[in-house]
């Protein structure tokens, strides 16, 4: 039995049944990290000693009769490096926070620890979560475990890659415009972006506060549901995280979509969609129909304007959120400056990468005097229309289905040259954040021998080898149970597709 290939729930059951010790589980993960990190670079930091110390503590507590009900006891989990861990560097993959050691845990980290999970390390990401390839990381790019010439997606690329490469059983990511779902799709794993307000953002280093949510990435729907159940729930430290009716996601793990009404926005299959991705998604549609779901096409209003509105809102909030990195209280400070203004400018110019600077400037522009109404306020109105479009759709449907991303994972270096083109890759994901809805990305097959390329201006083409395709299921507000049930049903019809991993 290879421990690291188990699912999180299988592992915690074995630990509870004393077939395995927590320490054995952690050692298995650590040795896999040692073996595979040279190929994938999923982690920014690995908390080896701390994880082993946690393991011994949890084992003792387990033997004292605690954690009997926890689905995650003893499970090694990776955490995206924009989620604060007390006493452990939390960098946002940025030079400006390279040495930042938070004196507090994010609320999700506390919840994981309370459930007996083991924090293994901090995963790589696009700098400040701005990007969809993990290439903007100050610490270098993460590689896709399916093909190390490809990006893992982003911004939670390190989390998705760590899970796909079996360097962690589960990982936490954050999703502002698709940053959990798109890398999950690219790496062939499952990821959930919860409804805005389901998971506390306290300790999540903000990119765009009104859109950010933390969520799980795992190799099964069940593991995602279990993790979400542990981390969700109202938090006194985050007033945008409000009490919901139920956080019982594991009881939604039922293979049953009979009568479930699934809507597919017509525009989702138009130009720009890789035919292989389309094929994969339609394959999943056929499965749902077979299982008794009612699938219909419909027109989703205003969704075409989601990307421009998203970049206005996200950049504006980011420009404000990232102003605190000024070399005064924490983080990088330029070595050489003359006066306060130069301290600010040099620190920030040297500390931030290109994409982050670009978004901060867009943000400053759209909020600046004379442009607020034309840009920021307009974007908030577009957001309202997008929300209304979804509200109308959910009067007819329980779930909205589509691809997670228009392509499979792109080659390293292919996306960065043209920012607008990179932003277009978020076409299916950003509207979900704008409307605050929950969505899951789940694998729906592999492309037929091909890596997508968007180098040409035409239809993306597939080349030589198979890469995972992601299906996105969007639920109504706080409708996580619906999408989990549907995803679980689909998952039951396939076996988990495992990449060939470098050992």
């Amino acid at each position, binding site marked *: 039995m290879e421990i690291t290939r188990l699912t999180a729930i299988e592992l915690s059951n074995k630990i509870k049944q004393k077939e395995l010790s927590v320490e054995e589980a952690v050692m298995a993960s650590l040795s896999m990290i040692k073996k595979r990190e040279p190929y994938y670079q999923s982690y920014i930091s690995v908390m080896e000693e701390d994880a082993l110390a946690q393991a011994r503590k949890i084992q003792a507590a387990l033997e004292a009769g605690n954690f009997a009900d926890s689905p995650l006891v003893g499970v090694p989990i990776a955490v995206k490096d924009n989620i604060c861990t007390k006493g452990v560097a939390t960098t946002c993959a940025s030079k400006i926070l390279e040495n930042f050691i938070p004196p507090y845990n994010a609320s999700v980290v506390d919840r994981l620890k309370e459930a007996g999970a083991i924090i293994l390390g901090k995963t790589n990401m696009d700098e400040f979560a701005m990007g969809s390839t993990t290439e903007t990381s100050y610490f270098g790019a993460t590689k896709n475990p399916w093909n190390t010439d490809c990006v893992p997606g982003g911004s939670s690329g390190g989390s998705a890659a760590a899970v796909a490469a079996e360097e962690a059983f589960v990982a936490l990511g954050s999703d502002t415009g698709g940053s959990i779902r798109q890398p999950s799709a690219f790496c062939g794993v499952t990821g959930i972006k919860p409804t805005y307000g389901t998971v506390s953002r306290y300790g999540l280093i903000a990119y765009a506060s009104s859109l950010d949510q933390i969520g799980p990435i795992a190799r099964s729907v069940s593991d995602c549901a279990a993790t979400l159940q542990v981390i969700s729930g109202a938090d006194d430290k985050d007033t945008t995280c409000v009490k919901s009716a139920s956080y019982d996601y594991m009881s939604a793990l039922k293979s049953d979509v009979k009568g479930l009404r699934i809507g597919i926005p017509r525009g989702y299959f138009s130009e720009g969609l890789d035919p292989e991705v389309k094929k994969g998604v339609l394959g999943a549609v056929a499965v749902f129909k077979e299982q008794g779901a009612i699938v219909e096409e419909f027109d989703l209003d205003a969704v075409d304007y989601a990307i421009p509105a998203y970049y206005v809102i996200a950049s504006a909030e980011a420009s404000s959120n990232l102003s605190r990195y000024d070399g005064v209280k924490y983080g990088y*400070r330029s070595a050489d400056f003359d006066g306060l203004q130069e301290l600010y400018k040099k620190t*920030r110019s040297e500390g931030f990468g290109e994409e982050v600077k670009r978004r901060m400037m867009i943000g400053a522009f759209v909020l600046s005097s004379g442009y607020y109404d034309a840009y920021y306020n307009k974007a908030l109105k*577009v957001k309202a229309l997008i929300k209304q479009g979804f509200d109308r759709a959910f009067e007819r449907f329980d779930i909205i289905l589509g691809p997670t991303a228009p392509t499979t994972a792109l080659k390293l270096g292919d996306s960065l040259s043209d920012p607008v083109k990179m932003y277009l890759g978020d076409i299916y994901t950003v509207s979900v954040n704008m409307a605050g809805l929950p969505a899951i990305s789940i694998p729906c097959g592999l492309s037929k021998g091909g890596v997508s390329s968007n180098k040409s201006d035409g239809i993306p083409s597939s080349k030589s080898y198979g890469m995972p395709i992601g299906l996105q299921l969007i639920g109504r507000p706080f409708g996580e149970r619906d999408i989990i049930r549907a995803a679980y049903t689909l998952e039951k019809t396939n076996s988990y597709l495992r990449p060939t991993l470098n050992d």
Partner: protein
Amino acid sequence: MEITDQTIEYVSALAKLSLQPEEKEKAKKDLGNILTYIDMMKELDTDGIEPMSHAFSMKNVFRDDVVTNEDNREELLKNAPKQKDGCFMVPKTVD
């Protein structure tokens, strides 16, 4: 949208960034392209639509007026790039 030198200087000043000449040229081009793309938003008729900053109507979430924190200066100053006498240290500020 054409981004002028003046605009790029203004936004970089607001964002407290100093750009090298070549960075500035690239930023002008990139911002121009991005804003041209963003301007597509203007096609959508939003007359009479209320701007929405939160997707759900959450309201009135408060804490009670209770002191819960104690002195934790040592921890809070640990990350300071430069400190003196329990304070963060910055270049002289002049009013």
